């Protein structure tokens, strides 16, 4: 299965350990014209995705700069969620999906043999469209990732041998919940089941859960689409704050939302093409392509 997902060119064009700015520079100049401030966090080149015979994403190339918010917009079925799921290889979980092309994370190709998916997904966290906390306590939801990675150990044996990390767990839970602007609301009921929270709180809990593994990139798939306007406003404010430390890539249906919170905007159009990618102000005020102009002004899609 993994064979089909390999791009045969990878080993030659992108050595695993390449971190020098040189090759990065070269690659970027090759496939995008858009120039931005800051270092490239994720470099995508000629990415094609097929679901069976369906060509869902057609030769997409874009660089995503670090510590900024990149919005992906476009009509339903245009491949923006597919694109997002390529960035942490979640598409591997879909049997019929085949990915062709290159995604480099900090200059390292993630579609090649020997990539540690655990490590990749620790660094590239993800928040889903509908809030999906585990049916566990709030505390257990937050510490789930680090616990499974072995970063936090509060098991019975750890307690017996006196190496239990309960303090670390408390600090982690508080830090993550504060980052997700949820601490004030739930600090007194960390042991309650997370399913008892409201939808907006659950979504922020999912963000906190993703932040707890200390990622560098946060992928968000329409995180506010299932939420009411007040919860949406909170999530948007949160995304804005998160961009100071993290690289945020967000898929949204809501163009106003994209305009409000993002630094860069990528517009996908039906058929899985990346129609335009650039500075948010520029994309919304002076789009280069007529189709994008039509889409943004509401004539289509």
């Amino acid at each position, binding site marked *: 299965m993994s064979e089909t997902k390999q791009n045969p060119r990878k080993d030659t064009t992108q050595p695993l350990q390449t971190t020098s700015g040189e090759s990065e520079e070269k690659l970027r100049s090759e496939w995008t014209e858009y120039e931005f401030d800051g270092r490239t966090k994720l470099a995508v080149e000629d990415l094609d995705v097929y679901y069976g015979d369906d060509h869902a994403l057609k030769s997409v190339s874009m660089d995503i700069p670090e510590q900024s918010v990149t919005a992906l917009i476009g009509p339903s079925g245009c491949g923006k969620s597919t694109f997002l799921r390529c960035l942490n290889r979640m598409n591997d979980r879909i049997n019929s999906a085949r990915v062709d092309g290159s995604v480099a994370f900090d200059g390292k190709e993630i579609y090649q043999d020997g990539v540690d998916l655990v490590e990749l*997904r620790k660094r590239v966290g*993800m928040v889903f469209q509908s809030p999906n906390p*585990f*049916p566990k306590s709030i505390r257990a939801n937050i510490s789930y990732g680090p616990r*499974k*990675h072995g970063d936090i150990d509060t098991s019975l044996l750890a307690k017996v041998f006196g190496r239990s990390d309960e303090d670390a767990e408390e600090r982690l839970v508080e830090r993550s919940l504060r980052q997700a602007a949820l601490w004030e609301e739930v600090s007194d009921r960390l042991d309650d089941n997370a399913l008892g929270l409201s939808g907006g709180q659950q979504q922020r809990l*999912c963000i906190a859960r993703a932040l707890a593994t200390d990622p560098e990139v946060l992928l968000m798939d329409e995180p506010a689409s299932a939420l009411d306007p007040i919860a949406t406003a909170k999530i948007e404010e949160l995304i804005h704050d998160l961009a100071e430390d993290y690289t945020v890539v967000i898929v949204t249906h809501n163009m106003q939302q994209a305009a409000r919170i993002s630094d860069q905007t990528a517009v996908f159009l039906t058929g899985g093409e990346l129609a335009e990618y650039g500075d948010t102000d520029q994309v919304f005020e002076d789009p280069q392509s007529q189709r994008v102009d039509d889409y943004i002004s509401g004539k289509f899609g």
Partner: protein
Amino acid sequence: MAGATRTRLVREDTSGADAVAALAVGVASVLFGLGLAAMFEVVGLTGTLAGVPTLPLLGGLLLVQGVAVVVFGVGSRFGAVETNPRPDAGIVAAVAFTLIWLVVGGLVASQVLGLGLAGWLLGAILTGAAGFAATVLPREDVGSTLPAGVVTALVGLVFLSGYIAPTSVWDLGWEQKASLTAEFMVPVVTVFCALLTGWAAAKAYGGFGARGRRVGAYLLVYLNAAAIVGVLFALVAFTVFKGVPGLFRGLTFGPGVGPESTVALFGASVTFSWPVYLPFAMNGVGLLNDLNGVLPAIVGTFWLVVGAVLFAVPLGVGAAIFLTEYAERGRFTQVVEVATNGLWSTPSIVFGLFGFAFLIPRFGNGKSLLAGMLTLGFMLLPLVVITSREAMLSVPDEYRDASAALGVTKWQTIRSVVLPAALPGVVTGTILGVGRIAGETAPILLTMAGGVFVPGSQTADVIGGFQFTAAPPFVSNPELLQATSALPYQLYALITAGVGASGNVGNPDQFRWATALILLLVVLSFYAVGIVTRYYFRRKLDYE
């Protein structure tokens, strides 16, 4: 939507007609209950009820009920009662009434008029056609009340007239000497007529039309549910009433009256006497016993179920994990699915034969507790696989996605997210399976059970039986390799052992019922453990 039917938006007050219909529904329910009670001989047909002989009482009630329903229907037809009927009563009612009237006509022609084959066939067809016509041709209010009410009134008349005596027997004249007794037929016919007129009365109460049909269906569904609960309750109550005298025979309380038990732990041992003596549950069958009991069978059943569960649950859950989480959906999983479903419906005697032919030669060539445990474990396995698989498939994929997106491996996801969420389902499946295997007789007969009347010395002491030995395999447990009894087998043996053996157990009838009651209690206590476990796991998953 001009021409759409309009009914009262608000039913302001209960009219007299409504009250009559409601009363008819009430009488139908009473008749239904009385019929069931007579069927289970709670109410005797020969006796009296509230000072009135039972059979005429039933007849009178049926007559009144039938007439009331017909009067209501006809009154509605001629505008005396405000209803909203459809043009006809519908094809289902028509078919049902045709069949009923076929039977009525045939019976009258052959039994009352004494006509031959051709005669009663003609009569049956004529009345059947009349029933069909009476249902389909008039408006719904007459169509659904008249055929039902007339049948019921007729039956009431027959009961009242004394044409059928409470002790009547209708010999069918077949080779097999089959006969129908009034004792059985009267309750059945009463229940049937009660359902029929109850349905008609409920429709009338709802004013026919859509609302009437809903009320009619509602009544049938509720009476049905009540009957099922009632039958289950009667079954349990019957066993309890019959079993209690034998079970509590010789029950004494007081310090030191019970048998002595020795608890040994790390070399130190404490011997104490139970402060309660329940001979039936604390003795085996022995010549010197004051009262005999079934302790070996109780203990045998307990260990049997524990062993089977310990064997089947880990294997079954493991297989389910592989099938749902690892195996690609395809031919292989389909084959496994069909095979597990087939295994679950395989007759238990086949499992028993497998144990007899395969396991017994490998475990000391004699019937043994271990062979029984494994055989029943094999029986339990498919159900555990099926229900665990269902439970795991119903765990939302979102949990798996969320876990994968956090960089958690598949196995860790299964252990910490999928399994906890699936556990209530696994426990439910295991409970169901335990209910079945605990009552299984055939495999025990072939693989495990020894004597019919088991002395107390044959009580399996599985925990105490473990011994450490110097040679491999270093642990031995002769108790596991001994034949022992189990409750269903004991019950079977007691019933088939016949009169000659009755001297061993005093009152054999009491003894059997007490054994049945104990079996019921043992299975129910396994149920209780399962339900508490499931509740515990669910509590952890749900928020309050």
